């Protein structure tokens, strides 16, 4: 039936009902429980990032760089590895800048151990992943540079050896992006996916002007490139299988990435964000052969069908429905986008209906994490912001080169709220952020944050959670599976709360973090059940574990190693 305006009355009733339902389902407003303190100055970290720029505006300057949070010395606390740029033509330096490894000495003190560890690469750093490729119990480092890449083998004694040449993983003179270790064929060792940005050389360099001001060009000014997949031969060497695996068939402008079982078929797939092009979803057939299904999955384009300038890619189950959802950061005037996993390898952009993009539109957004910052049992969003044009305010002051980062609290019931202004001084820092990484740096049970800022010192944020919510953190020890359990799923059930996480190596914006899985538990003081689905198929179940513990689960063993939290 139609009314006098020719509208369908049934339709109006339907939409009125929908509106009423939306109102009824609005989650309760709760005061922000997230408190992040800027403790940068007390950490002793003196690293300063350089993009190697001299004013010539090479495109690579804009995308540097990521960082890694990993426990390089297996002492139980998380250390920090910062990537650095390198002098580009036109820039002269007395001492070449290098990457830096900071050992976590506890008590928020970090010591620069780059020299003794031997990881001070002076290449142009863009992406990094940590992974124990030789299953010796120590995480190694892979650096995805502009120029030859580097593989540092962790010797287990606090030092690393550059094994790039013998491993055969330098790849060549690509512009690097994200990198991930993953086990493509479930043979128990970690293979390596290396994303590349655009086909740029100094000879093909271009720049442009906006309103008369010099500016960087974007990725569409350069040809696209395909990515590289390297199979671990199990003897310390790798073989390039990009062509036979199906990876080389697709060309894009790769940025951040994550390897995850997006379709829950018990193998690891590859999700690569592309800058100003549809994102890639390489579906694994279980044997290490891949088919690109980005468009089919709903992850290639935003809900409007528009390609985004995707920067960072992370995944996590934000609505605790047992499926991994994806979140991607993007360029100015695009919302950082949240994709809900609908099951069956299908996703829906839910950014606007959940509010998960609130506050991001004016900014270029980079590092990202779907992480539980308030230990309430659901995953919040941290989004690092900063423009790539250092002079953007001269021709567009809706945005800014240096700006505050954003925290979106998960309120439950598919709603997020931008609580950045209530999160303490850590969210008042205004710099031009790139990579962001998240882990419990002081082992007190909550997730802290380290951010790499372009051309500046990094920012370290301590989580001072005001509410005593419970938590549990789980480290996997693979036996048949790769040593760190990369690609394995862990389900934690505590009363009415069931959560899922997957072990990743390489994620967010060209960064690495979160090898030790973190679960907030809210007021639940113990975990009823932990179920590990190891990559490879075996399943271990552990029951009745007290909360607020670090738990190490070894494949095939029923008794986990349980360690309490550090004393405040």
């Amino acid at each position, binding site marked *: 039936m139609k009314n006098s305006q020719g509208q369908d009355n049934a339709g109006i009733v339907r939409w009125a009902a929908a509106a009423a339902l939306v109102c009824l389902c609005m989650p309760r407003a709760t005061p922000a429980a997230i408190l992040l303190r800027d403790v940068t100055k007390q950490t002793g970290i003196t690293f300063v990032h350089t993009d190697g720029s001299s004013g010539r505006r090479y495109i690579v300057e804009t995308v540097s760089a990521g960082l890694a949070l990993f426990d390089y010395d297996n002492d139980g606390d998380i250390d920090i590895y910062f990537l650095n740029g390198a002098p580009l033509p036109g820039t002269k330096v007395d001492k070449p800048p290098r990457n830096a490894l900071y050992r976590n000495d506890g008590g928020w003190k970090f010591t620069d151990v780059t020299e003794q560890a031997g990881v001070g690469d002076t290449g142009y750093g863009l992406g990094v992943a940590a992974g124990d490729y030789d299953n010796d119990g120590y995480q190694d480092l892979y650096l995805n540079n502009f120029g030859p890449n580097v593989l540092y083998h962790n010797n287990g004694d606090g030092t690393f050896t550059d094994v790039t040449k013998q491993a055969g993983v330098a790849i060549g003179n690509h512009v690097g992006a994200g990198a991930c270790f993953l086990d493509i064929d479930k043979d128990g060792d970690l293979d390596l996916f290396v994303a590349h940005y655009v086909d740029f050389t100094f000879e093909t360099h271009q720049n442009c002007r906006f*309103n008369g001001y010099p500016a960087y060009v974007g990725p*569409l000014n350069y040809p696209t490139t395909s990515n590289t997949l390297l199979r671990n031969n199990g003897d310390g060497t790798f073989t390039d299988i990009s062509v036979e695996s199906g990876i080389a068939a697709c060309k894009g402008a790769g940025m951040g990435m994550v390897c995850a079982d997006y379709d829950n078929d018990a193998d690891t797939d590859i999700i690569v964000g592309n800058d100003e092009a549809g994102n890639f979803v390489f579906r694994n057939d279980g044997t290490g052969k891949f088919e690109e299904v980005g*468009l089919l999955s*709903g992850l290639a384009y935003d809900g409007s069908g528009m390609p985004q300038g995707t920067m960072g890619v992370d995944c996590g189950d934000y609505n605790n429905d047992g499926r991994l959802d994806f979140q991607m950061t993007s360029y100015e005037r695009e919302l950082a986008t949240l994709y809900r996993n609908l099951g069956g390898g299908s996703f829906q952009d839910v950014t606007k209906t959940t509010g998960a993009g609130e506050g991001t539109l*004016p900014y270029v957004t980079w590092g990202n994490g779907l992480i539980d910052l308030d230990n309430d049992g659901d995953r919040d969003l941290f989004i690092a912001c900063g423009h790539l044009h250092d002079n953007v305010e001269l021709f567009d002051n*809706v945005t800014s080169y240096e700006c505050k980062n954003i925290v979106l609290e998960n309120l439950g019931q598919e709603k997020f709220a931008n609580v950045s202004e209530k999160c303490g001084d850590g969210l008042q820092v205004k710099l031009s952020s790139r990579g962001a990484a998240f882990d419990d740096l002081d082992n007190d049970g909550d997730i802290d944050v380290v951010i790499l800022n372009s051309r500046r010192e990094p920012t370290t944020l301590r989580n001072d959670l005001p509410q005593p919510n419970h938590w549990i953190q789980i480290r996997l020890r693979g036996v048949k599976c790769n040593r760190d359990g990369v690609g394995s799923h862990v389900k934690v059930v505590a009363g009415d709360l069931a959560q899922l996480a997957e072990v990743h190596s390489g994620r967010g914006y060209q960064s690495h973090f979160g090898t030790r899985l973190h679960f907030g538990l809210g007021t639940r003081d113990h975990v009823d059940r932990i179920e590990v689905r190891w990559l490879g198929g075996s399943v271990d179940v552990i029951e009745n574990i007290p909360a607020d513990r670090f738990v190490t689960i070894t494949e095939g063993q029923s008794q986990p190693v349980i360690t309490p939290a550090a004393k405040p």
Partner: protein
Amino acid sequence: MREEQLEAARRLAAAFPGDSNASFLLGMAYLEQGDAVEASTYLSKSLELQPNRADAYDHLGQIATLKGENERAIDMFRKALEMNPQMPAVHFRLAKALVFMGRLPEAIAELQRDMEIPPQNGESHALLGEVYAQLQDYAGAKASYEKAIQIQPKLSKPYYGLSVACAKLGLQEESKQYQEKFKEIEAQDRQAGRHWRQVFDPLAVTRQSVSHTHTDIGRVYQSHGRVDVAEPLWQKAAILDPNNVECRFHLAVLYEQTQRPLDALKLYEQITRAEAKNGAAYFLMGSLYLRLNRPDEAEKTFRKVVEVSPDRPEGYRALAQLYLQTNRNWAEAGKLAAQAVEVEPSAAHYFLLATACEKNKDRAGMLSALKRAIELDPDNAEYRRTYEKLAGTR
């Protein structure tokens, strides 16, 4: 050049601090510089001076949208629509802000209003499709996306939406077809984007922008009687952008009014070079040739009006009048007058037809046309007088 643009707008605002248009133009000049902060200040000031400016509310809404301030954007767009409910695209922009806020039923209502205002826009239907899809009404989404591609077949988004909606509706084959079409159009868009980047000339864009600002500023000076200031601004605008037709029209009219017909002629020539199908410019040029007593050039130019604007009556009318006034081509004049009547059956055109019929000794046609002219304009004394005079004669 950008500084010059801003400076010209600043001088205007200083010269006429109580003129809303002056503040508005300064706000727009700041916006052109990418300075949304100052732009907001002066757009707001223009609203203080003239609170019913829908255009200022609209621009404030657009700025708020870019800043991610969706509540404010919604407020501004609603105010713009209060002032002018038919303002093109504002319902669409309001709907987008509502979608950003997740207020989907309200967005649907705005999009439906947008669609009532011509011309139809594929983007509105595509957004409506997206909203329906968010609400999981995939049949509704499909219908909206289909409408979008009917209107804009080269828009990629609706094909994407259709591939998703069809898949949800179990129409797998259709979904696959739309997916392929999306890939094809998206690849074309990417290619076009790459090409655009290769040929993009920022200086030309700046020149166009500054040229248009000078044109608008000149209009405000003119409205205050300061054509002495307006003229050099329009001249500068013409130099900066060879395709700026508006400033050339302003200058040409000014030159005609100030007895500089040859300068005006040059400008009309420039306009027709920039826009080969600008019938109005040819018409004005032809009229000027007539005033300059250059009937042959006038005839040629009026023929051009007929050629480029066959759906407008001016060319037919002017040519017919020319033949009648110069006592030649009466038969042709009759045909042209009849065409003018056909395109626009106004009293004046019937009267012209009557005059042509008289010259062609077509008494019946003449009387019939005169009768029709009187019917359409019964108060016109000249028509009546002519009818009475001619009806009584044989």
